[in-house]
């Protein structure tokens, strides 16, 4: 919180006892909030029997079985068959064989995760690129119907994703974009670009025009002034915007569920179907969840100042 410590306007500065009470309540809330997440991370290191034990086990022997199950496909075999295979070559084979299973190949999780990365970063880059250009133009030039265009850009976010998904499904089927990374990148870019324009326009508005005007007088063209003077000043704003776009694309589920099934499927629609035979493989689901949520948690902690600025700023401007 960048301005947290300097700008406190609590009523006549709270008493020490009042502060302690406030701290206790907030910390209590934060700890309760963390229970579900901690529980999921722990479940990822449980064995399947431990994960369905009653009462829920807080103390257990950690194992990587969930992670092994997440990344492999396995088949159940007779003990005689497994013995005929000879001793296991690797630690993960040993783990799997304890449950009378053999590894038959890698699972699709790694591929789905990779898709999330490609589609997330691809669409973030495009949305921020287009958003920067449009934001600069809206901020600096006389654009006819400017307010209408800006409102139009914003209103595209009010549509329920499922409502847009029907025609996009038909359109992508016709164009051959169904289940392609390109199709998903374009779609997420379109969803994100409205937010990007609004956020970035605020940041450009804050940069004094005089800088560019001085550069133009010095013989720069408009484009050069944009590139060499404005863009470097927008860095913080671009970073904040990029985080939001990335988080949206990373977390998106409805479009991914309806428009991808195989090659371009991202992780969110895949994680729920990991559950496996008998619906008992909670450690594998928890492991997948942990790996999927981890980058976002790290992002949140490391980039919290940019995030906070983006959240409050974006909302207050609109």
């Amino acid at each position, binding site marked *: 919180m960048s301005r947290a410590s300097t*700008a*406190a*306007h*609590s009523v*006549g500065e709270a008493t020490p006892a009042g*502060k302690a009470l*406030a*701290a206790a309540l*907030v910390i209590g*809330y*934060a700890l309760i*909030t963390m*229970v*579900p*997440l901690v*529980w999921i991370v722990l479940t990822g290191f449980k064995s399947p029997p431990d994960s369905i034990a*009653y009462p*829920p086990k807080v103390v257990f022997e950690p194992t990587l079985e969930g992670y092994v199950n997440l990344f492999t496909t396995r088949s159940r075999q007779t003990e005689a068959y497994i013995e005929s295979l000879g001793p296991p070559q690797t630690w993960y084979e040993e783990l799997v064989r304890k449950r009378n299973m053999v590894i038959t190949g890698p699972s699709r999780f790694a591929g789905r995760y990779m898709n999330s990365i490609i589609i997330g970063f691809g669409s973030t880059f495009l949305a921020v690129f287009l958003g920067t250009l*449009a934001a*600069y*133009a*809206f901020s*600096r030039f006389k*654009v006819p119907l400017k307010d209408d*265009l800006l409102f139009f850009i914003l209103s595209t976010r*009010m*549509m*329920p*994703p*499922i*409502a847009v998904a*029907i025609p996009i499904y038909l*359109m992508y089927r016709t164009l051959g974009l169904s289940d392609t990374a390109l199709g998903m990148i*374009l*779609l997420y870019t*379109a969803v994100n*670009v409205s937010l990007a*324009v609004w956020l970035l326009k605020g940041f450009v508005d804050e940069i004094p025009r005089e800088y*560019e*005007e001085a550069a*133009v*007088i010095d013989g720069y*063209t408009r*484009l050069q002034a944009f590139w060499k003077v404005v863009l470097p000043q927008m860095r913080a704003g671009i970073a904040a915007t990029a985080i939001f776009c990335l988080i949206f694309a*990373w*977390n998106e*589920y*409805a479009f991914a569920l309806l428009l991808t099934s195989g090659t371009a499927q991202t992780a*969110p629609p895949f*994680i*729920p179907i990991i559950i496996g035979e008998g619906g008992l493989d*909670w450690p594998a*689901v928890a492991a997948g*969840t942990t790996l*999927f949520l981890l980058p*976002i*948690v790290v992002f*949140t902690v490391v980039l919290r100042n940019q995030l906070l600025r983006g959240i409050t700023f974006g*909302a*207050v401007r609109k």
Partner: protein
Amino acid sequence: MPSDTVTTLADKTARATPLALARRVRALSDQAIAWLFITPTIVLLLAINIFPLLWTIYLSFTSYRANQPGRPIRWIGTRNYERLLGSEDIWGYMQVTASFVVWTMVIQVLIGLGLALLINRNFKGAGFWTTVILIPMMLSPAVVGTFWTYLYHPQIGIFSYIVNVFAAVGPLDMIGSVDLAMWSIIIVDTWMWTPYIMLLCLAGLRSIPPYLYEAAEIDRAGPLQQFWHITLPRVMPFLMLAVLFRGIENFKMFDMVVELTSGGPGSTTELASINLKREAFEKWRTGYSSAFAVILFVTVFGLANIYVKALNRVKQT
């Protein structure tokens, strides 16, 4: 505008020199740059947002089914709309959606505002704990829905276990019970999104100039009066914005709930978006569901506009 005169001047001199053409290519006019910069965004939005919306409106007047692409599209006028508006089921789903939106907003405003007031007391470590509180709202709603099904499990789930530590009610089937299913999704939404309301309230609190409180102290206004006459009116616009954004999002809610309860049991948590997906992508009644989509969109848009008018009135006072 001074910048414009400078460039037009540069343009004129450029045109007067033999190198005019080369200069013109490099020094695009402001208007050209503006269009060059805006057009790609507009084109993308037209192609992926507006064109599909128009198509939805067109399809809503037909009996088209997307799983039978070969069949000719038949125009049936407003029959889809008549059927939708006359259907009791649809009103049921709308009521479920409305109660989800209202309950989540009421609870989250109370907790969020309370937390913001507490954090604004600036105890040591407030920044760190604020960040911790924020984490749930950054997570993928669908994945959150998935792992809460595990936490909510009546036998092995930790939620039921913790509740039983405080009150021996036996296995608590949050998702499977008709009475509790709605609360199961309200709790998860509150867990995820209270931080958002809290953050905007915090931004509001920090925008209040301290001299207002100093003046109030001089006037001997008590803490309650200060809260009522200074804090609340100043935070109100921020709070209402937060409710607007979250309200719209929760009206469209799909991902978290579909993974958690998928609308059940019965249709106790069948939100409008979930039913829309069922009609459009399971029953493949594309025309009918397009009409449903249009109704939803108009509702969101209409409610949001009314709300923004109210918000502007609060801002002015």
